[in-house]
């Protein structure tokens, strides 16, 4: 009834308990903001769509590398060939990390950056200076830092404090990896059609580094909070966690950033050496933020939260749905607020985009497998290093693009044409790699183009 509605309206502002930057336990915040908390808890529900959410048992999401054997083949020599599963809701981020077989290979403490409410621990490691603590964290083994986290009582998945200012509830970013990455992006001259505040900063004095918490628009923060984690990264034992945005957010710009990166020991950067081909290759991880930034939604100011945390009416008030999940489970709130089409129509638009993308992905998968086969064979028949190296370089280029879209979690939806473009290049490079192996002095050889 109307009276009750009026009450709900006011309820939003009554704080029953005080929360601080060290309150990582969402339950405590939940006393002030029960509806957001209730929704947040729902991220523990299993969800599944044609390509989203997770298949497999409740207990454990399905192995991607079993479902798509070419993925496993591509990752041979790297931890991802041991265990790589469907993602699921935020509630699982700690347990899934703690249980992945990937931990059989040494992993760094930085892993926790995106799987736990880590800020208090960073501050502790840096005696109050989170940034310094963050820089230390990669030197710890994952196991040690994870234990520390449990001991200090901060072992919670992403929590309210990670996205909200405890005093004002304003959106804010906390993650050092993002703060450094976006700063480097601002200082680069990579195009940022989606981020007006960066364009503004660039045209300004530039005496202060770009600071998302000061400079970003409210609407940008509605995506930046997700960009703290849903991004490509380097996260291992040789150097601190890195977001590779120093040349821009396009897959090609990130590639050349990695190509020009050197490890502290002076070696050129690569994530692993392929077990079968000896190629020094790159691994792309969930570049949702980067791919989204290349799409028409980003350009139009449509944020992650618009689709994954849409506003919904609750009694007389308007709240953001904190059950972060696939918008396809939520089309009326996530899409119909802007698109005046039926739920069925919107669903089939997404699935058409995804089916096309998936077909290209599979096509790329068989191309990369063919290249790996060819390289193996050439090695076995005693091809020389310098006969092999062009093919290995092409494997690196092809795999980077293929993995960029395979690892991205929207099956191409976040930027359909850009995703297809990258897959087309991946296929071309993989095939050119095979062809390069026929370049022994040989009358029949055609010339592959650069």
């Amino acid at each position: 009834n109307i009276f009750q509605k009026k009450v709900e309206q006011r309820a939003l502002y009554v704080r029953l308990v005080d929360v601080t930057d060290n309150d990582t336990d969402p339950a405590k915040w939940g006393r002030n903001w029960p509806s957001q908390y209730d929704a947040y808890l729902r991220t523990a529900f299993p969800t599944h769509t044609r390509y989203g959410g997770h298949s497999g048992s409740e207990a454990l999401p399905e192995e991607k590398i079993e479902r798509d054997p070419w993925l496993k083949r591509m990752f041979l020599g790297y931890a991802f060939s041991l265990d790589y599963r469907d993602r699921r809701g935020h509630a699982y981020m700690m347990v899934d990390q703690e249980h992945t077989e990937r931990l059989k290979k040494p992993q760094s403490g930085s892993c926790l950056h995106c799987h736990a409410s880590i800020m208090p621990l960073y501050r502790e490691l840096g005696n109050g200076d989170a940034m310094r603590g963050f820089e230390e964290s990669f030197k710890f083994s994952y196991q040690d830092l994870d234990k520390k986290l449990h001991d200090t009582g901060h072992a919670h998945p992403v929590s309210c404090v990670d996205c909200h200012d405890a005093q004002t509830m304003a959106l804010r970013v906390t993650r050092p990896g993002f703060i450094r990455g976006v700063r480097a992006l601002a200082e680069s001259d990579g195009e940022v059609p989606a981020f007006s505040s960066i364009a503004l900063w660039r045209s300004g004095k530039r005496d202060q580094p770009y600071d998302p918490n000061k400079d970003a628009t409210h609407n940008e923060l509605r995506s930046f909070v997700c960009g703290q984690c849903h991004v490509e990264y380097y996260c291992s034992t040789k150097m601190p966690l890195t977001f590779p945005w120093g040349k821009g957010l396009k897959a090609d710009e990130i590639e050349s950033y990695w190509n020009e990166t050197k490890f502290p020991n002076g070696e050129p950067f690569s994530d692993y050496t392929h077990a079968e081909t000896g190629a020094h290759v790159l691994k792309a991880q969930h570049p949702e933020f980067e791919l989204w930034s290349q799409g028409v939604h980003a350009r139009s100011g449509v944020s992650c939260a618009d689709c994954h945390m849409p506003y919904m009416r609750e009694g007389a008030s308007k709240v953001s749905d904190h059950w972060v999940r696939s918008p396809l489970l939520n089309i009326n709130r996530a899409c119909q607020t802007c698109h005046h089409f039926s739920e069925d129509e919107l669903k089939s638009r997404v699935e058409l985009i995804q089916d096309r993308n998936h077909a290209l992905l599979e096509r790329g998968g068989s191309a990369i497998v063919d290249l790996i086969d060819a390289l193996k064979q050439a090695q076995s028949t005693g091809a020389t290093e310098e006969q092999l190296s062009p093919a290995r370089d092409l494997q690196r280029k092809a795999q980077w693009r293929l993995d960029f879209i395979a690892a991205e979690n929207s099956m191409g939806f976040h930027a359909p044409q850009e995703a297809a473009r990258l897959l087309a290049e991946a296929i071309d490079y993989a095939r050119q790699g095979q062809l390069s192996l026929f370049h022994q002095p040989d009358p029949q050889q055609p010339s592959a183009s650069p």
Partner: protein
Amino acid sequence: MDCCYTIAFMRQSNFEKSPSLRPGTGPYRTRRALVIALCCGIGAGLGIGGYTFRYANGLSYFSTDPAACANCHIMRSEFDAWQKSSHHAVATCIDCHLPHSLVPKYMAKAENGYRHSKAFTEGNFEEPIFVRPAGRTILQDNCVYCHQALTESIAMNSPHTGEQPCLHCHSTVGHGDAARLGGPLRKDEIVGVSSR
């Protein structure tokens, strides 16, 4: 004290023919619109039914004051946007959303309005709210009511389908780009879902 609101009988309009607006799909709850229309007694017989509903805060029955509509927070986003729209100076809610010709009929049908307010107080309606095909026909008529002179020419060469659906291109004139609001969790969402 009421504010008025009508549902016209369904009629095959070009909107329903256009691909994304198939009758019965998504927001166009054709069936419901029909049911409601049937509840509109005699009016329905005439092809148009009108009814009014009461609302706690109340407002003058013939009020053309948009604030009247905004009495329902549900109408708030449209109200806010309308104030910034190209039309706020020239057209109020009812100029677009109620049939110009039929206003007198509402008096008689006052009691039927009960349903609309019921939908509201019980909250058993789908969100985001969309104009139903019936409501779109009213809109179209009202666009033309004011813009006939300008648009006669573009209507002339489509005799078999009637005039051009203004909303196909001008759906934002009333309150800018859509800023609708999704409703609370559905029953199936309470227990967790899968679109498998």
